[in-house]
């Protein structure tokens, strides 16, 4: 993880967020959400920082981080492509979409390409079942996706054109 002033800024922002919260024992998850927003993921350093700040054991913090699938200890690529694997999407061919995407990028689900550009993820159901199968590319929902659409989605992500 980078040790520059940028990271310092982020730690400062995280501390300010924690200080601004109402006293509540149940704040750990909210704080981890904020930290992941800031850093993109939750490396050891960030987890330790949170545990010291909240006076909780590092084991407790790590226990919570690893329990919830929303939190990640690995950095993600520049672009994240998530394939919805909810039942509606599954019935409408989401697994074919996922395997084709894995083949195209040469990585497995949950991995990031070597150049750090793309991460493939699977999601549990985003509730857009009416548009199944659904692929979410950098937060944008693509509905009724076919295998032939994937190249276009990848190119769009890379070029930043939407």
């Amino acid at each position, binding site marked *: 993880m980078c040790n520059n002033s940028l990271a310092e800024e982020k730690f400062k922002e995280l501390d300010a967020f924690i200080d601004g919260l109402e006293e509540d024992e149940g704040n750990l998850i909210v704080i981890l959400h904020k930290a992941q927003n800031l850093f993109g993921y939750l490396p050891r350093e960030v987890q330790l920082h949170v545990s010291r700040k909240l006076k909780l054991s590092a084991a407790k913090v790590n226990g919570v981080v690893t329990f919830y699938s929303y939190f990640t200890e690995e950095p993600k690529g520049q672009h994240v492509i998530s394939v919805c694997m909810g039942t509606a999407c599954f019935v409408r061919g989401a697994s074919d979409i996922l395997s084709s995407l894995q083949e195209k990028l040469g990585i497995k689900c949950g991995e990031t390409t070597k150049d750090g550009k793309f991460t493939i993820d699977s999601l549990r159901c985003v*509730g857009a079942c009416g548009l199944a199968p659904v692929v979410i590319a950098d937060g944008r929902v693509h509905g009724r996706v076919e295998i032939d659409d994937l190249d276009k989605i990848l190119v769009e992500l890379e070029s930043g054109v939407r």
Partner: protein
Amino acid sequence: MIKIKSFNELKELKESLNAQREHIRIIVGMATCGMAAGAGEVFDSIAGEIMRQGLKNVTVVRSGCMGACHSEPTVEIVKPGEDPVLYGNVDSSRAKVIISNHIMRGEIVEELVLEKNYETASLGEVEQ
């Protein structure tokens, strides 16, 4: 927003709100499904067209899911004293047709109409 300090004030507010309702309402379904299908652009295009045509008496409403996920984006037109009309598979250009035909000339755009296959339980007035 004024603070409501009693049940009576709430009742009065409700009545005054309903007395003002002679506007035409254009409701755009903007839940996650609708947004993914392009409801945001449809909303912008409707709002822009209303401005351009200088239409008064029309409110464009961002609403939640209307349930017709198979035909998103959906738009409903509610004219006072008329049955509401639900349109499906609306895009920016179709939205403009709906405004010029339905809103301005009163002609329903039949080919885009979705059958509304539900009724809403009447809320029933609170027994006084």
